[in-house]
């Protein structure tokens, strides 16, 4: 296909593989929008990015050995989430230095395994940036499961996550099971990041789990509004990103990331005027 010529938007539904990818990204948009809202509220953006990247060597090994990539990535992601949760419980930051080095090890290790041990060099791009072509029914089921889990967790745990995020010690005193709520959030982010890997790749999971919710955060003033807007932005961004990826014949991960960031910039510019116009809070009692 000539990359300069714009494909017809109807190709997104008429081409069979595009239809599959569209459904996949819509399901991931529900999961990413809902969990992203909590990620943005709880300041877990870096955790979401790191979880995705940390799975890279697991994906390489699974890809080369024929082992289930989902299970391998899930093991790595949950292991990473467990480590972060344990460090947080001991009152320690997992440490920006340690995290940065861990990610370098994951990426460098994955490259060495891919190009030299398994000689699956061509797969590296797909594992890092996702694909719209190879998605199957299994991927759709996993994405649907992630979306359902995110929705159920938001309905059941939303009040607890809000109370704990707003005021951790106060939430604990209200009898909210803070530790369980935190553990479930980190675990769900890890599971959903793994579900997103086939479509957007290990390097850019933040494009689904951080960017749409950040855009929505600029546009809304309540937790409920944030959740709804984040899902809407994520689905729109997924469809638009898929269209760009079809147009440029490039993987969907980078396209979704670029479209999503542009939406964020547009929202930031549109609301910047409003933010400066808003009066300062009153200091009187």
């Amino acid at each position, binding site marked *: 296909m000539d990359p300069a010529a714009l494909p017809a938007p109807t190709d997104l539904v008429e081409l069979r593989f595009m239809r599959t990818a569209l459904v996949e990204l819509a399901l991931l948009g529900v999961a990413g929008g809902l969990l992203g809202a909590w990620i943005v*509220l709880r300041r877990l953006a870096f955790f979401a990015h790191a979880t995705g990247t940390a799975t890279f060597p697991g994906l390489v090994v699974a890809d080369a050995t024929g082992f289930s990539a989902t299970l391998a990535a899930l093991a790595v992601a949950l292991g990473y989430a467990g480590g972060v949760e344990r460090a947080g419980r*001991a*009152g320690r930051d997992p440490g920006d230095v340690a995290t940065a080095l861990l990610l370098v090890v994951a990426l460098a290790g994955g490259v060495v395994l891919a190009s030299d041990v398994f000689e699956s060099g061509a797969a590296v791009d797909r594992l890092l940036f996702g694909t719209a072509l190879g998605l199957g029914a299994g991927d759709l089921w996993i994405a649907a499961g992630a979306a359902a889990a995110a929705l159920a967790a938001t309905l*059941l*745990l939303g*009040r*607890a996550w*809000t*109370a704990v*995020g*707003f*005021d951790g*010690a*106060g*939430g*604990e*005193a*209200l*009898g*909210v*099971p803070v530790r369980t709520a935190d553990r479930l959030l980190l675990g769900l982010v890890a599971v959903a990041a793994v579900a997103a890997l086939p479509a957007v790749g290990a390097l850019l999971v933040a494009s689904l789990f951080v960017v749409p919710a950040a855009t929505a*955060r600029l546009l*809304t*003033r*309540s*937790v409920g*509004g*944030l959740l709804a807007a984040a899902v809407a932005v994520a689905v729109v961004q997924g469809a638009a990103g898929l269209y760009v990826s079809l147009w440029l014949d490039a993987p969907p991960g980078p396209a979704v990331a670029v479209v999503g960031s542009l939406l964020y910039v547009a929202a930031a510019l549109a609301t910047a005027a409003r933010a400066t116009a808003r009066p300062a*809070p*009153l*200091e*009187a*009692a």
Partner: protein
Amino acid sequence: MTAAVAASGLAVAYGGGRPALERVEFELAAGSSLCVLGPNGGGKTTLFRALTGELAPLRGTVSVAGGRPAYLAQTERTRLDFPVSALDVALMGSLANGRWWLPARRSDRATARAALDRVGLADRAGDRFGELSGGQRQRVLLARAIVQDARVLLLDEPLAGVDPASAERIERLFGELRDEGRALLVSTHDVDSARAFDRVLCVNHDQIAFGAPADVLSREVLERTYGAEIVVLDEPGPDGTVRAVTVQHHHHDH
């Protein structure tokens, strides 16, 4: 009458380290108030975290009557950027009914509105928490404690950075809550305000003193509590207790 709050031989530590607070021994009756005095890092917040159950005692016992105590952190420890309204925050108190997985009921909303009304913020129910003034935020947190209907309230520096008008209103609310039979534990820097409480507890890693303000607020006790961080004024207060000013750096770790 049994105590609303009691500690006996209490020692608390963070993560298996040395105790941050030890030899704490006091009792507080329902319907009375306790002022917790001490320097930064002296163990005031640690004591509260032991009373909420967040930190298990290393030695000794704590007991809190009537279920979970309400805990009001310093408002700068809450997330002011969180997209929650005053009503949302007051409504969080209803999570204490133990069914945190269910949506809030209509009756919970009515209770939360009534609590906001009681702290004088009925007209600000829809305002963002972070856009309220420091005193208003403290009152919203008090409304959350009222919704929680806790028998014991723990308040960490509730009057720090609050304008005088709000402070007066908050102190009046303290009186009302105490008269309803609740026990209030309030940590503060303000030695002068300690006189208005029924009991005073001085801590600086160890318990220094506990008792009625007139007995506890002596030059000797205050100097042991605050070390070099205090200037004791020569002129005594109206009821004969010592007047003092603490000179502290405001950094908030534990």
